[in-house]
């Protein structure tokens, strides 16, 4: 790809300036994705205790015989965790694939 027949893989293996840029870009992309997921989940989980304090009505509202606040803390957050984990995994694997294609170049 670049002059002298050096492939991105060589640049990475020899840890040249170019290789470091490749790697840093991958690490940054993965970290951004992870932090995005953390912000999404943290906003929900972090807001939950506050919401329960600010909306005391949730303790009194009964859903299927249980106060709504118990339901909210007890069940749907687990589903949310799995959903978020699943979405993250797909994106993270896709980022890895894109990097692999970039490094291997068009011939493979």
């Amino acid at each position: 790809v670049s002059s002298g027949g050096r492939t991105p893989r060589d640049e990475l293996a020899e840890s040249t300036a170019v290789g470091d840029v490749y790697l840093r870009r991958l690490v940054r992309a993965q970290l951004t994705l992870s932090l995005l997921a953390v912000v999404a989940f943290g906003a929900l989980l972090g807001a939950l205790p506050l919401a329960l304090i600010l909306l005391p009505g949730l303790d009194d509202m009964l859903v299927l015989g249980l106060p709504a606040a118990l339901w909210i803390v007890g069940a749907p957050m687990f589903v949310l965790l799995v959903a978020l984990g699943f979405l993250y995994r797909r994106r993270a694997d896709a980022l890895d694939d894109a990097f692999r294609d970039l490094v291997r170049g068009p011939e493979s």
Partner: protein
Amino acid sequence: VIAVAAVTAVVLGTVGLGAWGVRLARTTSDVFVASRAVSPWWNAAAISGEYLSAASFLGIAGLEMKLGAGALWLPLGFTAGYLALLLFVAAPLRRFGSYTIPDFAEARLESPFMRLVAAAVVLVIAGFYLVPQLKGAGLTLGVVTGSPYWVGVVVVGLIVALIVALGGMRGITYVQAYQYWVKTFAICVPACVLLLHLGGLPERAALFGKELPRAPAAGLSVQLDGATDVEFPAATSYRLDGVVRRARAGEEITLKGRLELPPRATVPVADGTDALRGEDWSAPVSGDTTATPLYVYSLLLATVLGTMGLPHILVRFYTNPDGPAARRTTVRVLGLLGLFYLFPVVYGLLGRALVPELYITGTTDEVVLRLPEVAWPGLGGEILAAIVAAGAFAAFMSTASGLLVSLGGTISYDIWPRLRHGPGGSRTRRFRVAAALAMVPPMLLALVAHDIDISLLVGWAFALAASTFCPLLLLGIWWAGLTARGAAAGLVVGTVVSSGAIFTSLLAGGGELLQQPAVVSVPLAFLTMWLVSRATASRAPDPSAHMLALHAPEGLGFDAAR
């Protein structure tokens, strides 16, 4: 009798699977990383099985009964910890290819000294986490068979040591996957059957209204063998060894002997438990010390980040074939844990309504074991009680074996080869000897620590893990600038601050920050690692090869082959 049979069946199943695993464990790779050939579903069940300990099976329901809905944050934090693991640790750690956290610390930071520092922290966390498992075993066997406390401790300790020493990682994987399903069955089925049998939740006013827990319509009779300090939240008459007495509202009395309460009397609560009215008890966040927003946030931080630093969990990630498989495994773990954690709350709710005598004795930890026979007297309750007892045993055995694998691994792999005059032997033999010997100190401690609260020891292990290995892993994986000196300084600061706070609260009492110091100790550890690393950056070796090994996807030839 049914309970003894059920417990025996689970133990025999464990030993049988363990023995099968011994036949599989032929090579060193089998013993240490199960030949890195465990499929995501098996591995996810094994990780969940290893993680759901005495604290999860007995402790959460007990805490929910004692503290109320504030304890609901615990299972949420315990599960969310795996999301953090998935986002930041799972794939890179697997790719890096080191076997233990000390191994990672030495390789990433190129410092043999870091291996020893990290190994010391592993020994402390895993050793102390093992004590409550054995303690739970002693208590459970006592409740089930009436045997003395030490019998359960010794029986479970010996069985676990035997299975781990012989089977290693490969054998333990199948044992733990099996035990996850035993536990989930054992917590789910009795909870659902009891709810159907009772036709819903009884005593609604004490659960969600303005009432305190009351004695049942037939009165309540409790045998108090030791002198017990209790507080009467409401005025009532009672009989002690047949003598009629009266208690004023708010009166604190030391009781010993047979306590009898009249029908519908408000039950007294043991010292250290707050008598909460239903409306406060069922609020997940409130002004109560163990449910203030600050306490809740600190607890979430400790459980989420502590999970990431538990050494016996991290070892499991090395048994995945590659990075993407590690990710897939972790997503499945999230689902399996979420499934399990839906049910402990049922025992907490029913326990408050139906087994209020546990408030008097202060042993709410036993609610899961005691509830079935109270809620459904007769054969039905007996069978359900047998099922939960068997599940509890699966919980101690799986977590204890996971901890022992990581203790044995750290001693035989990280410490032993560095002893100058240590005995030799193959790696596998060293592991077996180390695992067998490592069981001894926690067993002795568990025999002595009959009176120490299970949740206290567990809370300490999590706070310590969150303040030490969590910053080490996060910075080590994602920040090229971490140096050995920075990491060592951070580990020391995290250990000292978190254990110092907890010991202070243990000896002198204290507010929520001393009991749950993670919200302070974790940022301090991060800050220390960052500052010291910046100051010592010039002497650090070039980390780019390590960053490549951590983050380069498979198939490019950069995988660390170790």
